[in-house]
């Protein structure tokens, strides 16, 4: 009894000493020393490093799974790659791509400003235990095809096959940085049309260019865009009555045809407001092929009907992503750019739009519902006459 009292007293004293010490630290510390740089990781810290293609090979469409579940090869496995994308100009968001010799993989980290913590060109190790392998953009049927195999967290809602990791503690136990002072910025591989993946069947497993940073040369403008607008994003975004497709089949009966007059890579809120107030999309119907919103007289509602005093009060002014269609030979390449990117409002050079010149593009090659989608890091990834755009 006596002993335990003594122990308790000593413990209490020790604890209060510690807390008293910490209490006075801000008072007595004249200037805080800079913390040491982070410890970084090397191959020696990990047991089994597998390739991205090997990992992608474990995936079967519509069957996402949490690793290492039932896949012995994935037990304790790590993938290693160099970061090829950056979210700094805002065209990538909350995730980054890493690539090795066999392919590229999106790591769905789920934080803003990732380029601050994970530098382009930095080696990253991703410990797979507890992560989920899934695909984004898979679509069945004749008009469908492959999407991208991704690494993320499980998504029990079933909305997507993976979700973002988001929780710092989880991220820090799964994503490990290599030496920040030994960066090897990815040199994009120039590929030909033949080397492009078959978007119906290929994944990172079967085509090493999928998910990697590549350069496509001589792309010709295809006079078509795709963009999905919402009347009110505070309402159900999936409801047809809330959607307006700027597509190849809606409102194309204008002088602009399938381009809908959109001459920028994407549109910021400002630019979108400008476009719509020009009346460019007045003939676009609200809704989709299956359901169109109706006016009281039973006819289809168009954006022009929502013009109001000219400010289109019933249409949400927001930044929107745009897919600008190009052709490499005969293959369609959709260059998709985010309305939140810093270069969203840059005009596509006129000579490119009118077909007199082609454009060379460097970006991450990806697949979406059986199409090839291309995402650039920055405006300078476009080049005309060998000169990067500004």
């Amino acid at each position, binding site marked *: 009894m006596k002993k335990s009292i003594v122990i308790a007293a000593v413990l209490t004293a020790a604890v209060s000493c510690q807390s*008293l010490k*910490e*209490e*006075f*630290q*801000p*008072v007595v*510390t004249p200037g*805080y*020393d*800079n*913390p*040491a*740089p*982070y410890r970084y990781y090397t191959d020696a810290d990990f047991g089994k490093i597998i390739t991205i293609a090997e990992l992608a090979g474990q995936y079967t469409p519509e069957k996402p799974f949490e690793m290492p579940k039932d896949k012995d090869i994935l037990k304790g496995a790590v993938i290693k790659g160099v970061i090829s994308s950056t979210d*700094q100009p*805002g065209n990538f968001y909350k995730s980054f791509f890493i690539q090795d010799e066999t392919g590229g993989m999106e790591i769905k980290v789920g*934080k*803003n*400003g990732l380029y*601050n*913590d994970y*530098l382009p060109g930095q080696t990253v190790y991703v410990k797979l235990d507890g992560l989920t392998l899934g695909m984004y953009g898979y679509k069945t049927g004749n008009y469908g095809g492959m999407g991208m195999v991704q690494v993320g*967290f*499980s*998504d*029990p*809602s079933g909305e997507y096959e993976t*979700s973002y*990791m*988001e*929780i*710092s*503690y*989880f991220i820090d136990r799964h994503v490990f940085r290599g030496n*920040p002072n030994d960066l090897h910025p990815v040199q994009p591989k120039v590929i030909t049309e033949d080397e492009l993946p078959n978007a119906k069947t290929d994944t990172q497993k079967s085509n090493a260019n999928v998910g990697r940073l590549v350069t496509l040369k001589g792309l010709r403008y295809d006079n078509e865009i795709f963009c999905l607008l919402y009347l*009110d*994003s*505070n*309402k*159900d*975004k999936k409801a047809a009555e809330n959607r307006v497709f700027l597509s190849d089949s809606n409102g194309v009966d204008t002088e602009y045809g399938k381009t809908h007059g959109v001459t920028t890579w994407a549109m*910021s*809120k*400002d*630019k979108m407001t400008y476009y719509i107030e020009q009346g460019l999309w007045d003939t676009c119907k609200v809704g989709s092929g299956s359901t169109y919103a109706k006016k009281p007289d039973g006819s289809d509602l168009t954006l022009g009907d929502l013009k109001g005093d000219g400010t289109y009060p019933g249409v949400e002014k*927001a930044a929107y992503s745009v897919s600008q269609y190009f052709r490499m030979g005969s293959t369609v390449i959709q260059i998709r750019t985010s309305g*939140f*990117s*810093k*270069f*969203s*409002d*840059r005009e596509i050079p006129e000579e490119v739009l009118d077909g007199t010149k082609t454009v060379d593009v460097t970006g991450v090659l990806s697949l979406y519902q059986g199409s090839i989608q291309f995402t650039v890091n920055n405006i300078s990834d476009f080049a005309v006459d060998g000169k990067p755009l500004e």
Partner: protein
Amino acid sequence: MRKAILSFALLLLAVAAVAQGFTGGITATVVNRSGRLPIEGAKVVLTQGDEAVASVTTGPDGKFGFSGLDNGSYTLSVEAEDFVGTQINVLVEKGFVRDLVFVTLSPSSSIKEDIDDSNFAEFDLTDTGYSDAPTILFGSNDVYSKVAGYGFSAVRFKNRGYNSETEDVYLAGVKMNDALTGYSPYSLWSGLNEAMRSKDTAMGLETSEYGVGGFNGMTNISGIPSSVRPGWRFSVLSNSALYRLRVMANYASGQLDNGWSYAFNVSARVGGNDWVKGVYYKSLSFYGGVEKKITDEHRLALIAFATPGERGAQNASTQEVYDLMGDNMYNSNWGYQNGKVRNSRVRRTFEPVIALKYDFTPSDGFSASATALYRTGKNGYTALDWYDAMDPRPDYYRNLPSYSYFEDEDYNRSNDEKAAWATEMWNRNYPKTYANYQHLNWDRLYNVNYNNKDGRSKYALEERHVDQNDLNFAGSFKWRLTDFMKVNGGLSLKWNRTENYKSVNDLLGGRYYLNVDQFAERDFAANEALIQNDLDYFLRNGAAQKMEKGGKYGYDYLAQIRRAKAWANAEFNKGGFSATVAASLGYESFWREGLVRKGLFAGLDDNGDEIVYKGVTLTSYDQYGRVITSKGKSGVSRFLTYSGKLGLAYTLNGSHRFSANLGYFNDAPTFNQAFISARTRNSIIDGLTTIKSFSTDVNYEFSANGFSGRITGYCTKIMDQTDVMSFYDDSQQSFTNFAMTGIDQRHMGIELGVKVPLFVDGLSASGVLSWGDFIYTSTPHMVQTVDNSAKIVREEDVKYWKSHPEFKKTTIGGIEVYDQDADGYIVKRQIRHHVPSTPQLAAELALNYRYNYWFFEVNGQYFAHSYLDMNPLYRTSFACAGGDGVETPQEIEAMASQEEFAPAFLLNASVGKSWYINRKYNIGFSLEVKNILDNRNVRTGGYEQTRLIKSTGKDRYYPFDPKYFYMQGANYMLNLYFRF
């Protein structure tokens, strides 16, 4: 009866004296300043030159008289225990008995004087989310005021529910309330308890010698050397609620034979407390003053003081965070840097005040004084700033389990596995392992900055400055016109120029911070000019400015305030009746003067032309076609202010007093309530007008045979207040400004304080009750603008501000549903919304024992009906309707209802003793233990967040969790002092 005989006899004596020849006399009643109750046992000494002529001690009625005096001038010194003594020059002539009517004494602090109540007044509560400091400077002997002022401070009790700006605080005759916010300025002299001890307090609607005052009392701190208690005094104080240690030294000379007096007071406050980690003090305080009585007529005093130092602030979190940490005092502001505790929110101040006071006393019937006072210096407050990087706050909502998983499916958060990881991150059983997740991760901030090889900091510590230059002049006079009438009056002038700006406090391992607006960049990434915080620099240099440590960035503007006021009080006394009439008339103007040109609101250039950058016109206009500008002088807001008061009182038998007061006030709004977004532009809110208040009270006081007490009933209406706030609105997906006008509130209630002597000598009991009903009574109007463009996005009445409906429910087939009739849902009743952040019911019962310089006190306190501060966005019809635009009972009740905090019971005790050694030295101690039952679940305040959660079907919104502040658990304060 005895008293009546005595006074009659006195009167007879006086009459007899007159009859006998040309010798005169002096008579008066010694009364307590607050309440005018007679003071028994006051010692009155009459001197002529250096010679004492006579002395007398007052009886229960407080009256005294001297007769048989030769013509000539005399000095009357009056002293009483617990009161500040006074001296009066009296001229006796032509054999008249001079009836001074009243000699008023101001209460000094009570025997608890060494427990420094004002220590606790220095929480800078605006830092922590509170908008008000507690009202605390009561120094009177009124039982109620003592308890309400000090005893209730732990729960942030606000007297009568009023905000602190309604309490007028004067120093040496100059009103010191903050020019921009109106807040009480206690922090200017915190730690100088001795120098600032002598004060004079008027309660409620009472007037004072320093001004007309408002409806929440006024306090004048003397502050001059002759009012500081003479002698040396040293003290050491330790407490576990605020800061660990205070040491203080004080000396005052009293008035020396040569007419000089001087005093100084120094103290240091250091350390943290038992409850909130990261909160600390590192403050010094200095006071010095000299005073010279030049002749009997002229007296001059010069004082200067400052409280340089820094202190770490506390932050509020949601209950989810507190529960995860198992600690309602969790503070998200700090983290470990190299293993040492570092707070990101540190208030750093150095605001010296210098004042010169002149007193002129040409006769015993007239005196005047004038004070010039200047306040200057720096007042900064650090906070983390970041550019295009992760939110570094550990308790950011996305770091919490509730962001991934919520039981109610309508929240669309179903990832329980992710929530489990988040819960593990907040596992409190491994504080070391998870320190960098549960607290600020300084290491990460530095490492991110290290990653930028060109030295650009993505994280930096900014310091938000509010640097005042405040020059004041106040002159006043006291004039006794006749035996029954006294007049006070005065004039005050204020000139204030305050610079508001941010500076770089610490680059956290980087070499510069870029002066651009990242919120602007969200909307205008494509236009580099629009995102500039300093457009002129950008246009000159073609690039944004790189800020080094100490550089001003972000915003920089002056608040310019001018104020003039004239006032007069007249007091009439006849028999037991007294009446007071008071009025003031003033003029106030203020304007903003932008010192930098912001890209978003470029305005016109120096030649009055539009500003164009790369073909894009940057100049923008508001809905009236006026240029929106960030640089240069704004329009000037001008206000005529006035107030009037009337008071009546009747004193019966010297022990009962009945009084009633009423007042009407027309006050200017403060600078901080006038601009939509003072940070960025010159725009003033539409419909800015004066605040009108009407207040009345009725009082009964008694004091006899050791019994004393007071009961007061009051009612106050405050009308036409405005409020501005800025916040991120999810429905607009942008940062917005919210300007609310036409806020009315009504405060009414009852105050009761009673002191009763018990059967044992020295033992007494006291009881205090404050019951109030403080509610909002209007439906304010709001205008919401986008901060980036000044564009109005919403303009409507805040429908559910003053109340929201409770709907009738019925049971159909065993399921409870909202009942409907042909007109829709049936409203059962309206639930009123209350003025927040103070208990509207507060009570204390105390037992007090004093014996041979010992004192003991035990008290129990009960608090209830305290409410959470409301965010107006949630009370709009828009927020209650959700995405589908339809308001339902469920939505209204979830969004618009106001949270009432649970009642609280507290037990406190104190003990003290002082010893005299050789009648010269005095040592003593006092120990107070508060919240003995260690109740850690008492919410004292907080605020609602402004963000919205969209439901799965996007048909409705859910509110974010509110953030709370809690009262500390058991805490002590020990004070040791030595005096000679």
